[in-house]
């Protein structure tokens, strides 16, 4: 299946997404440890703060994973009624505006990160984490998202002029069939080992 420039990014993004999954698992175990420790009258205190950082990092990294799997949400019911050229134009506009947002966020994220790196500003919590530490991971996620979105937007804009059909296939909203078959093939793989569905 053709993937365009995002196809090149997929292995990196997928690995990062799996790593964030492990981070979620780790924070779960740490939290359970904290619940038990608290019952025994002693607390690590700062697990919830770490949890917030894990969420920020997981989300920022996940943005790219949702992008390469075309999962970011769009309303398609109105667009589907439009004539094909208008629809393709809107697909390109959607990718360009997504990229603009991603780049803006990464830039703001960098400003946050670099300011806090210079000043060494700590978090407003007992742990006093230097904020640049979690923000480094967060910013890396946003930068990856900005890179992927910019690549996709440039490719989509170029395709608008040279290959509209390909633009639709790569950057149009998932058709209903694609969306459903993604959901169901996922289910097939869940149940495959039991031989319930062919």
């Amino acid at each position, binding site marked *: 299946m053709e993937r365009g420039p995002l196809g090149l990014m997929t292995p990196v993004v997928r690995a990062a997404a799996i790593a964030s999954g*492990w981070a979620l698992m780790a924070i779960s175990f740490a939290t359970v440890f904290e619940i038990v420790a608290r019952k025994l009258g002693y607390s690590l205190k700062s697990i919830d703060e770490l949890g917030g950082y894990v969420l920020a990092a997981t989300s920022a990294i996940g943005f790219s994973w949702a992008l390469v799997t075309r999962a970011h949400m769009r309303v398609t019911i109105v667009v589907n009624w439009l004539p094909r050229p208008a629809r393709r134009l809107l697909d390109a506009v959607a990718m360009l505006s997504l990229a603009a947002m991603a780049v803006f966020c990464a830039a703001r*994220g960098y400003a946050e990160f670099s300011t806090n790196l210079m000043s060494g500003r700590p978090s407003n919590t007992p742990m006093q984490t230097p904020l640049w530490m979690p923000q480094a991971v967060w910013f890396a996620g946003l930068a990856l998202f900005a890179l992927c979105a910019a690549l996709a937007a440039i490719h989509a804009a170029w395709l608008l002029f040279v290959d509209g059909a390909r633009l639709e296939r790569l950057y149009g909203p998932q058709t209903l069939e694609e969306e459903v078959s993604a959901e169901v093939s996922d289910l097939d793989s869940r149940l495959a080992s039991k031989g319930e569905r062919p």
Partner: protein
Amino acid sequence: MMTADAGTVAIGFLLMLALMAAGLHIATVMFAIGVIGAAMFLGMPAVNALGVVYFESMNDELLLALPLFILVGEILVRCGATDDMYKALSQWLNPLPGGLLHTNIASSAVFSAVSGSSVATAATIATVALPTFKRRQYDQRMVLGSIAAGGSLGNLIPPGIALIIYGVLTNTSVARLYAAATVPGIVLTAMFMIAIVAMALYRPSIAPREAAPPPLAQRIRDLSGLAAPLFIFAVIMGSIYAGWATPTEAAALAVVVSLPIAALYRKLSIAMLHEAFLATVKLTALSMLILAGAFALNFVLGLLGATRALSSYVGGLQLSGIALIYALFVFYVILGTFFETLPMMVGTLPLVFPLTTAAGIDPVWFGVFLVLMCEISLISPPVGMTLYVIQAVRGEGSIGDVFRGTVPFFVTMLLMTLLLIHWQDMALWLPRWVFGP
């Protein structure tokens, strides 16, 4: 600094709906409206402050419950626990008029108690249920409708993720929201089953009589099929209401507990976990991107004084609380035919919530009401992912069958909404009893 009046806010809201309809990404639109509003009325310092808002909103310990509950559901779905559950419930429910249709509702209710996602619930139950119905003479539409309706219970029965998102966006206690949604969740399940009984009595042809159930001893033994989901549910709710854990900590506990359960079903493996991680991260990220857009929008609307302008405007209309609720009821049912749950809720809350507060509507009650509206949107055609997923699992016939099958359940949900509006204590007595007024 300028402030916005109600007219400007209305224009902004309509612009937002128009851009969403044009097929731009939901998150981009909310973010862009926030940035444009900030740049037009407040200047660059406010635009630059959005970076801080972004980090603050994504770095939220309470919202961590979102990926954790999603992860629990993804792990359990991959265990195959649903088959045992379906069998156990069917043996008890088959004697009712409507037979196996009840099991679709009940097993969805039980499964949704541990899975945050309605679409995943419907897909999983459909995969187990549809082959079972193949050999039986049931009315196809009723079969499909009952699976769709059951899937929609997912958000109402705790611990749903919609209530967490509502709680974070409106600063409402998630533990209170869970308590408030419990009774309506049970009542709606019961109403679905009553609807099935009524239809089966009125038109017996929709459901054949099932064979006599196996002996009591075996039925009791097979109840072990319910053990996994009920155990996780008990761990989550128990740890929250015993005061040991916050909702987020309870979600972490559930993740840890789901691992030995997966091991018992002999499904625990690195490959399985990685699949679950990828699905979890995807769903988390797409929700968080929209949420971050909503936070940016909220922040700007707050600075603009837009919510105050709107509240005082609506206050000037002298609408009673009930009139406002009915207006929102109609608004959400219409919006729900075009929108998926998340954008519908997140896109409207920044404007709607201040209105309801100004009108004296209880925020906990409104959370339950809004989630019920979201459930209605899930099964109202033509946009309703659940319906298409069920049709895809079925793999034959027409999507029209699914649409028609949901009609009786759609009507039941409208009745349920009326009940919830006029008997608000249905939602509010349990949180009041548990936590005090």
